[in-house]
């Protein structure tokens, strides 16, 4: 379990302090799929980077409950997938090497490492592409490489920052279903940030709705939609519409409050 408690983050720029995260608390249970959704300009990326140990906090804590470890630096239990796939892969290495490099520190046996790379590529439907270069692949395929790299690392938590924001709608739907399948196979807990309400509801067990800056948690909504989810059936359910409206209402309220503050 991952616990985010009273997380705060301020940047100081030129003597002035900019408060991005005011007070963010929520928990992520073992095996859960949690999405974080909020208006654009909310400190969503900042929140994820703090959770992944990539950014120092100003206050509060992020804790791996099982070990009681407070996250101050990137822990081996967490792997990240970033929004900009074209910048997160190493263009000078082939796909297989991109996926395999982080494993050098976690799997010492070469054959076993190769097997982990093959398994991960197969689970994202990229078997046979290990010898391609990232720039030979489409955007959606490149993001699948990034997902394979994260999965191969065998993390307990997969943290994804708007991973599907830079691809077209059809690819996006495919990738959404892919990540649902992959997390089943890998048995990984997922925290995914998005600004897309449909995506947040469609993927999640719980949706954490956050406000605009300075960011607080507005509400955490349980998504009681049946699994497995399907783009057609799930999104056609009346309950999907209700949940979607509920989240949208919260977000528009967040937007309105932010406007009166400004």
């Amino acid at each position, binding site marked *: 379990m991952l616990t985010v408690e009273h997380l705060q983050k301020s940047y100081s720029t030129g003597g002035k302090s900019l408060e991005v995260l005011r007070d963010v608390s929520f928990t992520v249970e073992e095996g859960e799929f949690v999405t974080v959704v909020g208006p654009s300009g909310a400190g969503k990326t900042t929140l994820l980077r703090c959770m992944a140990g*990539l950014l120092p906090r100003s206050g509060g804590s992020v804790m791996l409950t099982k070990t009681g470890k407070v996250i101050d630096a990137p822990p081996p239990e967490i792997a*990240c997938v970033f929004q900009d796939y074209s*910048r997160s892969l190493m263009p000078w*290495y082939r796909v297989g090497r991109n996926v395999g490099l982080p494993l050098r520190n976690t799997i010492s046996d070469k054959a076993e490492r190769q097997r982990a790379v093959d398994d991960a590529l197969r689970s994202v439907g990229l078997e046979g592409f290990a010898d391609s270069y990232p720039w030979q692949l489409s955007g959606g395929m490149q993001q699948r490489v990034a997902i394979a790299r994260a999965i191969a690392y065998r993390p307990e938590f997969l943290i994804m920052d708007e991973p599907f924001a830079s691809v077209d709608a059809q690819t996006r739907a495919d990738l959404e279903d892919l990540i649902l399948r992959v997390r089943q196979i890998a048995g990984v807990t997922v925290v995914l940030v998005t600004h897309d309400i449909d995506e947040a509801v469609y993927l999640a067990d719980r949706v954490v709705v956050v406000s605009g800056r300075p960011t607080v948690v507005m509400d955490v909504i349980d998504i009681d939609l049946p699994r497995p989810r399907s783009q057609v059936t799930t999104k056609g359910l009346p309950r999907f519409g209700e949940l979607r409206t509920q989240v949208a209402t919260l977000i528009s309220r967040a937007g309105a409050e932010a406007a009166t503050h400004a």
Partner: protein
Amino acid sequence: MSTTSIVSAVSRRRWSSGVRGAALSLILPVVIVVAWWFVSEGSTSPFFPPLRVILATFADTWLSSRVLSDIVPSLVRMIAGFAIATVVGVALGALLGRLRLAVAALNPILQFGRSLPATALIPVAVVLFGIGDTPKIVLIAFVSCFPILLNTIDGVRNVDPVLEDVCRSFRLSRTQRFRWVQLHAASPQVIAGMRVALSLAFVVMVATEMLGSTNGVGYVTLLAQQGFQIPLMWSGLILLGLLGLIVNGIFVLVERGLLRWYTQGQED
């Protein structure tokens, strides 16, 4: 369509346009050589001998014993100097790129060293290292080191912040980050620096051979001028031009192979 067929289609298209480009770029040189040949044919001026005479001299001089006695020594010096410059420039640049304060402290010295005209350093090199190969190689290495050094410093710093996050989140060690990421990310800039360095190395090679030398293409060319062997002087110039072209051509081929990921990625 599979990736391999996409790639081969692209390379086929590139190949045919490459052939056309090569043909196009040959037109002007051919025209100039032909024009030179006929215009100079009846020339009686001692300064502008017929191209026929120059080429005959070229064949007699440069394609025989002078290959070993002058061309090879020239190239060996240049390549040795350039190789030393590359090793020192990349190693020192990679180190300094991670030490911002050191660079700030060293910057005036680096800028001063870079600004020194190579030719002014020849007497200094002769005084310090005498006559022979050593002063020439040292000077070639010194002068051509700067563009590589400065570009490497800049290059290893310019790793994409997203990629930095990737490295940190997968807990890559400093050495791993350096070998797998920084060096590669810097390579386009390093190679651009090497390209500048290569032409500097060529200039310094010729210049050092013209002052205090007993062999080399530059030495023979200057001696020809002083001995009023004008066709030999012209043939030396042609040889230098051709050598420059060949060396640069080889470099471009190597560059293309090394930076395929970079140039291909940019086109998308």
